[in-house]
């Protein structure tokens, strides 16, 4: 008898989704699907608005990563104005994105995933949350809270507020940074570095060899991300690189505005999330991954001493490029370290305090593409405008979308390894959810419960009758 297991909602991710596991007659896993069950429709909202409004408008896509959309949108606007953005503005945007990487990665690791890692995948779901973590690991929780607060405060000092700062604009940013704010941010970096060094050490001692991290969700794929012209890790600007599962470049030095040369988009009737794929291999063979693991796998080096040492160790542990989905956590921590090191460099650049931070111009191009690295991966904003700068069409490829094929593959791999003869329990289902959580998908900024939400799993027979139900509350 064929059966279907449904995990709905998927918890501790941003947005609404569900997982269905389709079992064959012998109780093995035949297929697994991650369904994104909400529709936002921002590509349509953008039409009819001016290019100058786009950063503030698209920031509203999300409450966790508005900075990412503001920056990608501003870069698309830069291309439409065809101006030379002042150096100070580039440095300020770079600094804000580094703050964004720190705060978003800290949220993902300490608030959403650390409960699984430190309390146990099969521990009491009622306590498997940040409160349970605070009870068991108070010091780690304090450090995580302070680290995220630092990233958020950096964004606020630059943009005026932590969420939806209408700050980056086509041509630059709306206001310069004051010396006092620059000095405050710089004063906090040492503590943040201490936190991430401690956390990385703890992670490597405890989890880098754990079964969940080394066995579950290990599969080959391509990787996509930005790198500098000479191949170093990049998050703002740079060129697109695509590598195979062993790190061999398939595409290198590609102008990000030409992303359509290598990325196609498919759709499936069972999910609102698009399925981007590597065009030369077609759909669905052209599966690739972006985000922390993708960026670590495409780059040659970070270009900062501590992160480069961690990258070397990361690759030594994984025998080269890692295909393990739970290494997203490891990669995320290394990226926090790299971001903090790069913040130090940016903060020491006196051009950061220059008063001229915006170049103004009219419409000089009909099309603009903005590409940069959001915490969850490569983010693309592509606008077409009329001579007055009114948007006539928009294409947004969000970071989570790039990973759609890989997220589906991830839960299939984990389910096949953990579900035998049709038997499963809550701990197994949490490991499967964890395969999604590792990507830190941002499905929207919608509110949904976490930890306490009932998780209902139904096993449905071939005639549609529910033959088994598991409820987590």
């Amino acid at each position: 008898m064929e059966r279907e297991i449904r995990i709905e909602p998927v918890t501790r991710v941003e947005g609404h989704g569900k997982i269905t596991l389709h079992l064959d007659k012998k109780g093995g896993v035949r297929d697994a699907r991650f369904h994104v069950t909400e529709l936002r429709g921002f590509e349509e909202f953008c039409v009819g608005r001016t290019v100058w409004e786009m950063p503030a408008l698209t920031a509203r896509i999300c409450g966790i990563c508005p900075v990412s959309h503001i920056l990608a949108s501003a870069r698309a606007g830069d291309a439409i104005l065809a101006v030379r953005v002042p150096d100070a503005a580039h440095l300020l945007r770079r600094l804000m994105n580094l703050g964004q990487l720190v705060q978003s990665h800290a949220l993902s690791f300490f608030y959403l995933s650390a409960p699984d890692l430190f309390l146990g995948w099969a521990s009491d779901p009622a306590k498997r949350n940040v409160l349970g973590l605070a009870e068991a690991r108070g010091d780690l929780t304090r450090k995580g809270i302070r680290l995220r607060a630092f990233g958020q405060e950096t964004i606020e000092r630059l943009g005026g507020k932590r969420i939806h700062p209408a700050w980056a604009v086509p041509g630059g940013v709306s206001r310069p940074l004051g010396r006092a704010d620059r000095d405050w941010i710089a004063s906090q970096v040492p503590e943040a570095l201490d936190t991430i060094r401690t956390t990385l050490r703890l992670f490597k001692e405890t989890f880098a060899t754990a079964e969940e991290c080394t066995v579950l969700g290990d599969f080959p794929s391509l990787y996509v991300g930005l790198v500098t012209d000479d191949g170093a890790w990049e998050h703002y600007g740079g060129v697109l690189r695509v590598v195979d599962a062993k790190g061999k470049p398939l595409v290198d030095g590609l102008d990000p505005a030409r992303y359509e040369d290598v990325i196609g988009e498919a759709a499936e009737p069972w999910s609102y999330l698009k399925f981007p794929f590597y065009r030369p291999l077609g759909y669905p063979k052209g599966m690739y991954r972006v985000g922390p693991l993708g960026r670590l796998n495409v780059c040659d080096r970070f270009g900062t001493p501590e992160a480069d040492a961690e990258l070397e160790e990361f690759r030594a542990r994984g025998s080269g490029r890692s295909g393990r989905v739970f290494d997203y956590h490891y990669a995320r921590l290394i990226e926090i370290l790299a971001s903090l090191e790069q913040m130090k460099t940016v903060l020491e650049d006196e051009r950061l305090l220059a008063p001229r931070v915006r170049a103004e111009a009219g419409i000089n191009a009909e099309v603009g593409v903005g590409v940069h690295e959001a915490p969850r991966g490569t983010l693309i904003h592509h606008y077409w405008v009329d001579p007055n700068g009114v948007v006539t069409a928009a294409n947004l490829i969000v970071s989570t979308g790039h990973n759609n094929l890989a997220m589906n593959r991830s839960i299939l791999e984990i389910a096949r390894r953990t579900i035998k003869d049709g038997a499963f329990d809550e701990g197994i289902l949490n490991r499967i959810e964890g395969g999604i959580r590792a990507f830190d998908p941002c499905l929207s900024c919608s509110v949904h419960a976490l930890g306490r939400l009932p998780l209902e799993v139904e096993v449905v027979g071939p005639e549609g009758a529910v033959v088994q139900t598991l409820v987590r509350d």
Partner: protein
Amino acid sequence: MDLVIGIGNPLRQDDGIGPRVVEALPVFPSAEACVVCELVPELTLRLRGARRVLFVDAEAGGAETQLGRVTGRESGWGHTLGPEGLLELAARAFGSAPDAWVLSVPGVNFGYGEGLSDRAEGFVPQAVERASRWLSEGQVSADGA
């Protein structure tokens, strides 16, 4: 130091009543105020320095403003963190949490849009007065101590 936290999203009509009340409060010595769309773990850092905290939040329905002490604690945690959960997180992560009260202000419209409904607007003066009195009582208590 006493801390007043106005909770709510001003783009969801009456949900914005918490921030509206907090922004209308007079300045009190030894008191701080902030407004947030929702409670987040980082607020535990502000709670650490507070002797007392007052959460001002909208309440769907309701007939009048209600001021009550927070006595319970939340042992679970959701994407929407409540005062009880935030206080428990502060206690677990930092070893203590301030005495806390919630001022609930009735609201009726929580759809998209700016501005309060007439009914919610009518409760603002009363809510400001109750929050001010709470702050004044704390001032007397702190001075006496």
